[in-house]
């Protein structure tokens, strides 16, 4: 399986994503420059974390119009997997690949620490190596992570199992306390209607090795791998 990792000016999660795909997973991985128009035959596209274009105007607003996004959007429309992490999630929302938007954290503070998230849907192509209700410890690092949307779209996400991760306490309870950024319903990650685009604020690619955090993010990558191998 080949992972294509888009590098925007200001991306900083691209090396971590490469490490997760190439070293932790042992798969082929390549960087894709944002000005290119070629996905180089990648099976999975990763939109990584960072501060593309300095978060000018709104986080992700300008990166969304990078040349390579035409190909990324076409890749998603074909039903191929896109993993959008942190700033990538913001870009995917701005590009209309996912509903809603990510706004300034309710605390107005940048938050950089390991948080707990609960797997809400363990049937998606990104999460089937987990089980429903599993609690993962995964790092977050963001200032604009408060997921929001109009009430009808949020209801649609909830009704259709499209909320795949939710912030929670260490014992898996979804409480205001564990909601690090004030996201509506504690939403930490969602998938699109077709289930092939995942957007999440926490960083699974920074949780693939117990030396630096936990290995709890590996399941996202293993899920993708076994989905295509199957």
């Amino acid at each position: 399986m080949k992972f294509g990792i888009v590098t925007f000016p200001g991306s900083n999660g691209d090396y971590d994503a490469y490490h997760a795909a190439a070293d932790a997973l042992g798969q082929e991985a390549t960087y894709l420059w944002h000005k290119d128009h070629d996905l180089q035959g990648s099976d999975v596209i990763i939109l990584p974390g960072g501060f593309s274009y300095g978060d000018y105007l709104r986080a992700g607003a300008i990166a969304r119009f990078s040349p390579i996004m035409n190909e990324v959007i076409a890749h998603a429309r074909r039903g191929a997997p896109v993993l959008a992490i942190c700033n990538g999630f913001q870009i995917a929302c701005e590009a209309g690949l996912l509903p809603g938007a990510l706004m300034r954290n309710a605390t107005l503070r940048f938050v950089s620490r390991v948080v707990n998230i609960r797997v809400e849907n363990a049937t998606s192509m990104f999460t089937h190596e987990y089980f429903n209700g599993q609690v993962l410890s995964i790092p977050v690092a963001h200032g604009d992570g408060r997921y929001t949307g109009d009430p009808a779209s949020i209801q649609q996400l909830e009704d259709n199992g499209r909320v795949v991760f939710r912030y929670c306490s260490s014992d898996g309870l979804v409480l205001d306390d564990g909601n690090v950024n004030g996201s509506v319903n504690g939403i930490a990650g969602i998938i699109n209607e077709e289930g092939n685009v995942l957007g999440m604020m926490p960083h699974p690619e920074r949780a693939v090795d117990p030396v630096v955090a936990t290995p709890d993010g590996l399941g996202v990558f293993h899920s993708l791998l076994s989905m295509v191998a199957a």
Partner: protein
Amino acid sequence: MQSYRVPVQIVPRPGILDPQGAAVVGALRTLGFETVQDVRIGRFITVDVSADTPQAATESVRSMCSKLLANPVIEDFVLEEPTLQPDQRT
């Protein structure tokens, strides 16, 4: 073609939590401004465009707002009247 300056106000939509506005409300009350009821913080952008008429200038900036300058999920925008700018090409 003339040069017009079109000012744009972008504000959080009603019902969208604005934590910056809420923090400023708290600070204003601390300062003794007890009459303050609500504060919403947005952004102010001026766009200079070349157009034949003020209406055309407004329309082109409206289109820019829909496509990039504002995010309709969370923001509303208000266009102010265009003002004719001195020709900068001469």
